[in-house]
């Protein structure tokens, strides 16, 4: 029962990285060195997960390092490594960079555990571990009142929904007499079972910023540092969707009503997110609403309650997170208004073209990651005969092209903020450049080379 602890080595590495960053006072380079070491440890953890193989349920069945978990953990650790590398290079304005890296690493460790959770208590603790540091990151600038207000809103709402979820979990435990996902039996529990599941889902969906629990996201994001948003809006989503998939796999067969619940949340998220993103010119708000929309696509894959749907959702979570993190990092470098990206193509052509790649992937243009993600999740929805959701998903994808292309238009045909006297051209920073290039390569590689990844998740379409 206690064998196979080596499966936790990646998590240990990530926590070690967090500790190095936290106590890096005595490292050379004023904390920068500590941040680099943390990034390297996270990258190593991602590689270990990716090539480490899968295992049976362990630690008394509390966690299961299966294929889906492996993919999600590798995604969480890998993206955290890229983010830490960027922060090590560019830093956080007005504050110490290594603390931010430490918080992100703790959140990543929580996310990686969450991706493996097979037990309600583990799920709750890992979820809190992955979101607690996120609150700090969202209000990272101590003297920024607006940022603190956004972070406080985020914190209060997240706490409220966490407590609701805990309430739901207590019912689930009461009904089935066990906290293990595998033992949850809702047959004959009637309305109480539904209430328990709904309360649990409220907590999870709010953390995913799914409609109608999305109201916190735009305000919280718009007040936070873009570099914080780059992490908070992406990495926790991968772990969150993974654990929802795991929980659904246990519950959905006993509760067919869930299809309807998830379908409604999915439709609302896609429509509200995409329509609300359309008029935004504050890029953090735009990406916040686009995040709501992408959560809608993720829920579409979960709704049918099939294995292919779960795999599609986890795959899409990574396919969404890579370009989304990249776009927010560019926003952190260039500025938060859409006009701040004006003429990026002449100032930093490589970055403008990378942006085109990321935005096209977010729209779902082949052969990029986002396309294969959408192919899989539309496939799961078609397979589940959720035709209305599919049509909504298609129409809103086209709407999303409208606002993503406003960014492209600004980068190529807008007016340069430098010409307007908005400050000098942003100088290149090697580590940040490497981080962004990795994200650009990843968005193409995940698409064209989807085959081994899909085999790893155990996803077979059709």
């Amino acid at each position, binding site marked *: 029962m206690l064998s196979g602890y080596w499966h936790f080595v990646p998590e240990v590495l990530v926590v070690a990285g967090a500790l190095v960053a936290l106590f890096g006072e005595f490292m050379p380079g004023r904390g920068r060195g500590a941040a680099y070491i943390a990034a390297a440890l996270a990258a190593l953890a991602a590689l270990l997960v990716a090539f480490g193989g899968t295992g049976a349920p362990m630690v008394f069945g509390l966690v299961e390092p299966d294929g889906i978990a492996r993919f999600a953990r590798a995604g969480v650790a890998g993206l955290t490594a890229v983010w830490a590398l960027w922060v090590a290079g560019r830093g956080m304005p007005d504050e110490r960079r290594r603390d931010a890296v430490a918080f992100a690493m703790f959140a990543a460790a929580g996310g990686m555990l969450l991706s493996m959770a097979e037990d309600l208590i583990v799920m709750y603790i890992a979820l809190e571990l992955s979101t607690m540091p996120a609150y700090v990151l969202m209000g990272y600038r101590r003297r920024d009142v607006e940022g603190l207000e956004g972070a406080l809103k985020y914190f209060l709402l997240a706490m409220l929904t966490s407590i609701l979820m805990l309430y739901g979990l207590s019912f689930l435990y009461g009904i089935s007499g066990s906290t293990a996902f595998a033992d949850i039996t809702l047959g004959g529990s009637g309305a109480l079972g539904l209430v328990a599941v709904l309360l649990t889902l409220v907590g999870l969906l709010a953390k995913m910023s799914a409609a109608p629990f999305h109201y916190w996201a735009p305000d919280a994001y718009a007040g936070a540092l873009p570099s914080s948003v780059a992490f908070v809006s992406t990495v926790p989503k991968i772990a969150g969707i993974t654990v929802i998939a795991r929980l659904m796999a246990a519950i959905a067969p006993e509760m067919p009503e869930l299809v309807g619940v998830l379908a409604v949340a999915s439709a609302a998220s896609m429509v509200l997110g995409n329509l609300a993103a359309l008029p935004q010119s504050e890029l953090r708000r735009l990406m916040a609403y686009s995040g709501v929309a992408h959560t809608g696509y993720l829920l579409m894959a979960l709704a049918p309650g099939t294995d292919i749907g779960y795999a599609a959702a986890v795959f899409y979570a990574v396919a969404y997170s890579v370009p989304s993190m990249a776009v927010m990092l560019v926003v952190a470098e260039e500025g938060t208004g859409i006009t701040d990206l004006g003429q990026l193509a002449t100032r930093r052509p490589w970055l403008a073209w990378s942006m*085109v790649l990321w935005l*096209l992937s977010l*729209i*779902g*243009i*082949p*052969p990029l990651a986002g*396309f*294969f993600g*959408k*192919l*899989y999740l*539309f*496939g799961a929805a*078609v*397979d589940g005969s959720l035709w209305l959701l*599919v*049509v909504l998903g*298609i*129409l809103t*994808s*086209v709407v999303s*092209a*409208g606002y993503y*292309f406003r960014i492209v*238009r600004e980068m*190529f*045909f807008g007016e340069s903020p430098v010409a307007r006297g908005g400050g000098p051209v942003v100088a290149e920073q090697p580590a940040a450049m490497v981080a962004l290039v990795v994200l650009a390569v990843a968005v193409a590689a995940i698409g064209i080379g*989807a*085959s081994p990844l*899909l*085999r790893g998740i155990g*996803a*077979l*379409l*059709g």
Partner: protein
Amino acid sequence: MLPLLTTIVFLPLVGAAITAFLPKDRAGLPRMVALVVSLIDLALVIWLVASFDAGGGLQFVERARWIPEAGIQYFMGVDGISLPLLFLSALLLPISILASWKVSERPSFYFAMILLLAVGMNGVFVALDFVLFYVFWELVLVPMYFLIAVWGGPRREYAAIKFFLYTLFGSVFMLVGILALYLHPAGGTFDMMALAGSGFPAGFQWWAFAAFFLGFAVKVPVFPFHTWLPDAHVEAPTAGSVLLAGILLKMGTYGFVRVSLPLLPEAAATWAWFVALLGVISIVYGAAVAFAQTDLKKLVAYSSVSHMGFVMLGIASATPEGLNGAVAIMFAHGVITGMLFLLVGMVYERTHTRMIADVSGLSKQAPVAAGMLAFASFASLGLPGLAGFVGEFLSLVGAWRSELVPSGLVIAAAVGVLLAAAYMLWMVQRTVLGTQSKEVEGITDLTRLEIGILIPLVVITVVMGVYWSSILRYVDPAVNALLASMGAV
């Protein structure tokens, strides 16, 4: 053996990568690289055509595993239907590069986009796996967006995004159609050849047909999905218009021939009257609107809507004549409309106007240009003996013989032929003839390079018009095989 199709498709991608990284101070280098790459590509395609066995079905097949977890293959091949279109695509590429010889604004970006566009155009016609097909289908959107948005006319940004969103709207529906075929118990593969004759139930076919119809109809474009086309054409640079009308529109009609007919034969038969009706509306409406145009480029753009209507009519008929005609028009329209857009561009460079009223009396000042314009117009209106006639005649015969197409529609389409003759001749009368306008005064005639660009197209127009079997000997066996697989022959 050398993977010929892969080389033909991806050679321009290599060229685009080279072009993008050329030193910025050598402005003449990108166009040379692009031209060389496009000529090698054309040579390879000519070699392919020469070694193609006209009656031999699917050839030059390349098949490899790509994403087996989702049944996605790397599967390419050509048959007699895709061969002329691949040739057309390879032919128009160097021509449009030569027509852009004077582009001075960001030349490396420009030629990289043209070459990237070529990857998508070539790829669509040879891809036989649905996902690969979709990859190439969408690949053309981005370079065309930039070609219009960076080097276009005054309303270029609006036209570019309109083009992008409209065609994206259509193609995502096609994606759902693809997934529906794949996930249906009778389907189970993305292999377009294997899916032919899968015997999907009729009710399912209707829905799948509707999804594919949206994807293809926007691209063609069929009335009432055509509104993006005039904007895109008017704003696009000359080479963009040539490739848009010459190749990109054909992707839509090719989709109908390659997908809708063989994969969903019952729905295609049931909805033939509807496809034919929209085709005929496109013919008449396109011609009527072309009549009213004062802008040369818009006139040619609307004439494209009209001509593509004939293709739709031929496809709807599902007869050997109709389908031969449809493919023949696709090819001929690419050549002839390419000529027309090139000439409009050449005239515009000299007179700085595209208004028909402002370019009257060309024949005295620039006889070669005037003669070429008259020739291209005659070819476009379907003069017997030139390429445009072949397909229109065959598709009308096919539609008349077909039981699927109401005769009234065919008569209406024949009226469209008369309209085409009328608006084209009227345009020729006002530009080539007529009293010389002040914009035309003092302009130079076509240069040797410009004549050299047009000559291959003129030759092909005459050869195809006189010697029909130069193209039909490839198309006919493939069409018959396709109809046989549908059980219609």
